[in-house]
């Protein structure tokens, strides 16, 4: 309500006092409610399926290796150039469609999910890892191919449904 102008001087004083009383009443009522705090390290909220944590390149359990073909599309789409790929080379020196090193710079990544979307082989997933603070910047560049990350839980089945068909979007 566009209140304060609507009343006369006495009405304003009275409504002012009433507003203070109402405020006190609200806070008093809250004293008897249950806290809504989530006791963080022990209790945790359930992360939604689409949560965007650190980028991982999970091992496909059927293939026993990651799904990357070093097609460079993620490198090209990354707005911050946080990804770089070194391809494996065959005996004749020609590059193979496999990453020798998949370098991911956590320090510049902004968790935008563009690399995951652009990947035609579903090789990348944004994991649930979000406690990423460290005291050492040196650990920011990681080789995801060497990491051999095992994706588990709901996210794993969501991810596997994407390339095994029957993708319902969830």
């Amino acid at each position, binding site marked *: 309500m*566009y209140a*304060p102008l609507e009343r006369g001087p006495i009405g304003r004083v009275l409504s002012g006092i009433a*507003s*203070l009383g109402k*405020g006190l009443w609200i806070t008093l009522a809250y004293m008897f409610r249950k806290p809504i705090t989530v006791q963080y390290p022990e209790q945790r909220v359930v992360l*939604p*399926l689409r949560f965007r944590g650190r980028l991982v390149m999970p091992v496909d359990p059927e293939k026993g290796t990651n799904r990357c073909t070093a097609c460079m599309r993620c490198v090209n789409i990354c*707005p911050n150039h946080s990804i770089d790929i070194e391809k494996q080379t065959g005996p004749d020196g020609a590059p193979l469609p496999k990453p020798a090193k998949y370098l991911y710079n956590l320090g510049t990544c902004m968790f935008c*999910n563009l690399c995951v979307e652009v990947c035609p082989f579903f090789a990348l997933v944004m994991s649930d890892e979000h406690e990423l603070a460290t005291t050492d910047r040196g650990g920011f560049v990681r080789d995801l191919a060497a990491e051999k990350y095992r994706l588990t839980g709901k996210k794993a089945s969501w991810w596997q449904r994407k390339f095994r068909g029957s993708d319902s979007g969830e």
Partner: protein
Amino acid sequence: MRNVTFGNRDKMPPTARGTVPAATVVQPLPSASATSDEFLLNIGPQHPATHGVLRVVVTMDGEVVKDIVPHIGYVHRGLEKLFENRTYEQIIPFTDRTDYLSAIANNFAYVRGVEMLLGLEVPRKVEYMRVLMAELNRIASHLLWLAAYGLDMGAFTPFLYAFRDREEIVAMIEEASGGRLTTNYFRVGGFVHDLPKDFFARLRKFLARFGKALNELDTLLVENAIFVARTRGVGVIGKERAVSYGMTGPCLRASNAAFDVRRDMPYSIYPSLEFEIPVGRNGDTWDRSWVRIEEMRQSLAILRQAMEGFPEGEHRARAPRNIEPPAGEVYSAVEGPRGEIGFYIVSDGTRKPYRVKMRKPSFSNFSALPEILRGLKIADLVAVMGSLDLVVPEIDR
């Protein structure tokens, strides 16, 4: 009191080609004040009331503000330059980061601009989803403003009540997009994901509960007698001055100017929705607060309508894989929580825009601060600055 200067002007290297004069960091005090009681107070870049890294140098006479010089640019990241070297889809996550409280509105404005350049029609469902998300985002942003403003005014309790409600919205947005603040949810032609299955159930629950919570917040802060006494008639800016300063959003509407991009430069499905545009009468700090509270109520109404008329369909139009709009230019504006968010995009027909100019509401709103504030008290400085709802990365870009 000593005349204080900040930085040493003599040591600064000459500016390039000498056309733009080197900055004088602090305007010299008027000569009359050198011997009087005035003194300079440096507020920021690290100060509890500046909500980020901005700095105002205030000439004070006791507790009264005589003059105020804002300094910005502490978080200037040169985004507009970065955009010239990014493809159209790469820019979307950056638009989140210009204003972390209204990432969705920024996504919306930018994506809509690119779609206009491409001549792309988006499905009806996408429009509804966009409006739903934008209004949720508006409520979340206003709630955060209310919370932070309560802190500015010395009331800590509304902060946590507002955050409880905001958390619900943010969780809904997170479930849909995967991000809480920097959502990066919009894509050219639609959305990256469809809405999650239980989205409407959650939304319904939220709508049923939030009205009462909002009334509580209203009573606790905005209607409170102390709050009213501190904000009523403080920091007045008239309609003409507000328009001349380019103010938009709640700050302008508080000054009795009924301008809302949603109605006056209609976009998306807003013309088919019914909502009121709350307008203040005096343009003072209380009006700016009241307008935001009312806007949240209107957003609830919009959410209800959008939920009822929500159509079936695709969540993404068939957009070309490589976005290469034809040469041209476009200005796409949406009503963000802080006012008109506009993207002026110039395309030269390549995959990267020739120029993207971001017109950000906080920039213009903040530029009016010296005018609003002159002659008020230092406590009013906090009240007025808070009521402008500044987001510093948006000012600096």
